[in-house]
């Protein structure tokens, strides 16, 4: 009897606590809306040719999950976001990775914004390469297009005026570029050994970087002017050889740099005119790189809803073969199809051609929605005609297809 009474009382208390919590949640909900969204996906990387290294494979399967916990309050002027990310990959342990893409708090006022925490920042206007974009490290194990970024801790203060926005950044914590492991593809041979990275300043990374950027829209023009000081996100790849000249390994070398960047876009009628340029100063040299191009779109062709965009960009880098990208004096041309249908079907096909060796890199990306919550992405990447002295030669057998089916919640 005694036991039962106690049990009943506990039940009552628990019931009260539960109802109090429910009541709190019900009351709190309209004021403090927490939102959880994200996606889970399955990916397949299928290679066309046999690998250069017997430890590599023809087909790789992986799974991915990204969630976003988002909370907005104070009439939208304060924001909290948490975005964890995980990919579990077959064979290549370097590709199985977890990252916090975002863990941030933002406070917005009439003439300023303060953004704290781990964030991602994008600067720039062009399509073939992103020269100016420098705040975040590229997640190169995720996709070789480098569009995916690792979260970067930062203190970002934006000063918002009629004459534009000035962003000030303090970026504590340098993140090294992740590289595909020995079992993974695509990669050069021998693989890049990220564990033995070297630095130009006393042999270790300068942990804190600083950046400032002014950006503004004036009529048809969108302009950005930026300066970055700190450890370069793009390493130079050093080749270690033995006495016979045999390549032993490749190691990344990070320099301390000061980079000044300009990005400019004019939007005139159906034309987009784009320019990005950087001047990069390191211990030993001053380098210049630029990308300039146009995009023209034929909208709603024959009233079918179809848009066709034509893209052309010229890429120049004074660093030549030492450039962190393999584009030094190259042309990019591309075509973009947007069906503007219910399934949001899109396709972008492009080729970058080296103006000297005529080596080509083809890239086709297509995506389409299914059943309202699913999306299928297909990418095809082909390397062709690279000469042994070019960086792209390392990927000569790594042409591949990538399929990813994702469910969005």
């Amino acid at each position, binding site marked *: 009897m005694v036991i039962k009474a106690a049990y009943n009382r506990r039940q009552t208390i628990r019931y009260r606590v539960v109802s109090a919590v429910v009541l709190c949640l019900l009351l709190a909900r309209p004021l403090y809306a927490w939102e959880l969204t994200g996606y889970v996906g399955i990916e397949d990387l299928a290679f066309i040719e046999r690998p250069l290294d017997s430890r590599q494979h023809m087909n790789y399967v992986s799974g991915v999950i990204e969630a976003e916990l988002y909370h907005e309050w104070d009439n939208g002027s304060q924001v909290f976001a948490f975005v964890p990310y995980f990919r579990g990959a077959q064979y290549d342990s370097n590709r199985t990775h977890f990252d916090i893409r975002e863990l941030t708090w933002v406070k917005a006022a009439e003439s300023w*914004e303060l953004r704290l925490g781990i964030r991602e920042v994008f600067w720039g206007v062009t399509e073939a390469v992103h020269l100016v974009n420098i705040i975040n490290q590229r997640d190169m194990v995720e996709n070789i297009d480098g569009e995916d970024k690792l979260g970067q801790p930062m203190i970002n203060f934006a000063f918002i005026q009629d004459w534009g926005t000035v962003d000030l950044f303090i970026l504590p914590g340098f993140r090294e570029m992740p590289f595909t492991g020995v079992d993974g593809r695509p990669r050069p041979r021998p693989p890049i050994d990220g564990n033995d990275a070297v630095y130009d300043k006393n042999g270790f990374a300068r942990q804190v970087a600083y950046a400032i950027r002014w950006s503004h829209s004036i009529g048809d023009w969108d302009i950005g002017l930026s300066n970055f000081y700190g450890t370069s996100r793009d390493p130079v790849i050093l080749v270690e050889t033995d006495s016979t000249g045999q390549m032993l390994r490749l190691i990344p070398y990070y320099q301390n740099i000061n980079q000044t960047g300009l990005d400019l876009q004019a939007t005139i009628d159906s034309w987009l005119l784009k320019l990005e340029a950087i001047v990069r100063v390191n211990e030993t040299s001053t380098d210049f790189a630029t990308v300039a191009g146009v995009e023209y779109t034929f909208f709603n062709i024959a009233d079918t809803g179809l848009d066709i965009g034509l893209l052309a960009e010229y890429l120049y880098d004074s660093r030549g073969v030492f450039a962190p990208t393999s584009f030094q004096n190259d042309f990019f041309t591309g075509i973009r199809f947007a069906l503007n249908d219910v399934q949001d079907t899109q396709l972008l096909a492009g080729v970058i051609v080296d103006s000297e060796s005529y080596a080509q890199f083809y890239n086709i990306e297509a995506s389409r929605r299914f059943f309202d919550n699913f999306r299928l992405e297909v990418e095809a990447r082909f390397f062709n005609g690279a000469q042994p002295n070019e960086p792209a030669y390392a990927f000569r057998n790594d042409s591949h297809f990538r399929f990813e089916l994702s469910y969005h919640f």
Partner: protein
Amino acid sequence: MKKIIISVLFSLLPGLVYAEDISVEPASIEPVSTEQISTTEISAEQQGFEIMQEMDARDMGWGDMNTDMQMILKNKNGDEHIRSLRLKTLEMQGDGDKSLSIFDTPRDVKGTAFLSFTHALEADEQWLYLPALKRVKRISSSNKSGPFLGSQFAFEDLTSFELKKYKYNYLRDEVVDGVDSFVVELFPQYEHSGYTRNVVWVDKERYIPLKVDYYDRKNALLKTQKFIDYKQYLEQYWRADKSEMQNHLTGKSTILLWQGYVFRTGLTERNFDKNTLKRSR
């Protein structure tokens, strides 16, 4: 005689701000100020202009507006797809409105946001925020006639109404769904329109559009839009809860449902800049 007509005209104008609109509409004023036209008969062009001017004038001064919008896309087989977005709009004096649309569904484009500064005759300014890349893209606003989110609404059907965007022609009076209406033809004057003309049925009493027929570039009837369930806000401004767009060529239709209209929430131009665009989710 000239003076009287002009003073009568100006007395119709609600405020000085509005005079700017009129001053750049010489084509519509000239016929009135010519000697041949008497006070009793005005040209159909002038009459059409005055009806739409009155409609525009009655919808001025609401300031800013928040609303949730749902689009229901239907094809001939009755398959439905739902899109939901949140819309913030800021009324600009003497210029087109500024608007920010944030997509909630479909989930794969959740957080995508669209910022638009509309103008009467010059090109609109538009930016798109892509949350996966954290990238703000300035986009061309030449795409007036293309479908919005795969729906039967073209971009130009959803931008704010500005008097200067059209030339007008009053056609007739007609009763539509039991409501006494003016029927006015609108001829787009901005570039890249997909229409030769729109025919609008305007409620004579409330001065709000009830129905629009859209004629394509070959002047064939392409679409019909109906506005349903109007409600009045701030004791002045009428907003429909529902609008239906029927495409006569494809048999597809789109229903727009608006919910939770809130006016004068204190939005400023700062809520419609690229910094806010990047923060929107």
